[in-house]
């Protein structure tokens, strides 16, 4: 018994010692990925070039970090994940299991997440929480809007890219998904312009990894749409967890697979609840500041 426990403890220690260098290596590959570097440069350029421009409402500017750090980060993570596909017959027989390698890949999302946090601070410097561009939201809800639109997409995009790379073989999957999500967000936002008080359209608008929360009314005032920014962050984090679990599911065997499937079911249920809370919470109708 003691021998078995000692062996198990030794294996856990060995797993940790291989995981950290693996994660560090994947992180270095991700940071040097040209798509990600392009995304960082574009985020900085757009943020810098728009800093002095007149902005009437915050949603005019805060979609760009999500597009570049989240969308392009997804494509970079997808490339990174797929790049190991050719060497899978060799990598597959190493002592490190596929879920462990997937977990190491998921850790690279820390890099765009940190970039997102830095971008958030930049936005808070350019557009302080007390600014009128946020509309009638409370100070905490304003912060939640920014976190949900800048920081969490920067984390979720690369995680989605890893999950996609683990399951989909089609080389164009990342940019097709990027365009589909982009088109969906645009479509539901445009629908919200015409029916800002509709509950089903609010659900559709929030049924997305990114959502806008404000609009400029005809009178010039900033209008806040219905929905709770805090619960929306919860929904986004649930999507991130689902992406990680779906990625880990590939190649998982035995009890690990069972645990991942169970966690996936629980997270899925939590995501549905959080989406409903996001759609029904906050303002119950569009409010102008």
């Amino acid at each position: 018994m003691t021998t078995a426990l000692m062996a198990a403890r030794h294996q856990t220690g060995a797993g940790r010692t291989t995981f950290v260098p693996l994660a560090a290596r994947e992180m270095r590959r991700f940071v040097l990925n040209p798509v990600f570097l392009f995304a960082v440069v574009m985020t900085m350029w757009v943020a810098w070039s728009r800093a002095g421009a007149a902005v009437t409402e915050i949603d005019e500017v805060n979609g760009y970090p999500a597009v570049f750090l989240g969308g392009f980060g997804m494509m970079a993570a997808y490339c990174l994940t797929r790049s190991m596909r050719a060497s899978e017959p060799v990598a597959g027989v190493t002592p490190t299991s596929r879920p462990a390698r997937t977990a190491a890949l998921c850790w690279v999302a820390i890099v765009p997440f940190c970039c997102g946090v830095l971008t958030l601070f930049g936005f808070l410097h350019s557009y302080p929480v007390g600014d009128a561009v946020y509309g009638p939201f409370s100070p905490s809800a304003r912060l939640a809007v920014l976190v949900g639109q800048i920081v969490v997409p920067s984390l979720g995009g690369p995680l989605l890219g890893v999950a996609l790379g683990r399951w989909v073989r089609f080389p164009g999957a990342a940019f097709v998904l990027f365009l589909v999500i982009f088109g969906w967000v645009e479509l539901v936002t445009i629908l919200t312009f015409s029916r800002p008080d509709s509950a089903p359209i609010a659900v559709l608008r929030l049924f997305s990894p990114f959502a806008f929360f404000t609009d400029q009314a005809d009178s010039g005032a900033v209008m806040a749409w219905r929905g709770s920014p805090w619960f929306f962050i919860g929904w986004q984090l649930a999507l991130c967890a689902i992406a990680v679990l779906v990625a880990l599911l590939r190649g998982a065997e035995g009890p690990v697979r069972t645990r991942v499937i169970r966690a996936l079911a629980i997270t899925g249920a939590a995501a549905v609840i959080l989406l409903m809370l996001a759609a029904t919470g906050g303002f119950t109708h569009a409010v102008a500041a």
Partner: protein
Amino acid sequence: MIRPMLRAGAWPAVVGVSSVAVVVGGCGAAFPAAATVLLPVCFALLAAAAAFTLDEPASLVVDVTPTGPARRTAIRAVALLAPLAAGALVLLAAALRGLALPWAAAGLALAGNVLLGFAAACVVRTRTGEPGGVAGAAVVLVLMAPGLVPQVARWVRTFPAPGTGGLSSDTVWWTVLAVCAVAIAISARGRRLSRWRVRGAIPPLPGAVRP
């Protein structure tokens, strides 16, 4: 020759991406307010679909067959009918829904998008057997640039939507069509094993004299 060449094409990718484009474009036709955003996305997807028409997993074998690259490219170009038909279907649906678009300019933009994807694939095909992924991603990023970066939208318009400033979509697409025709002609002619690849495959011995 034509049938086997066409049969070997990456049809699942071409048809799959074209189908996604039809869905996105269909949403644009169904919701006229979103048409000017969704139709460019649809056209970008069709350009990506066109980029997959030259994918050849067995390129190492196919590239040394007597059928020349120009002929292979011409045969594979038939597959462009799929994204073009998909785009035409979307434009027809938009017309039936009563969208007020400049149809000639929209048709030109569709042809330009598809040809741009194909030209990018032709250029990348000289380096790799499966250019679809790289060429498609590059084309999508270029085509979506006006929608993603506000500064680019001020210089150039890739869709004939009402707006001010920048080059008009017609000017852009006529220029792109001309450049693409030249790029395709050059790529299709020069797609043989280049000299550096032959030298790389059989390195000459030091001091050896060619008979």
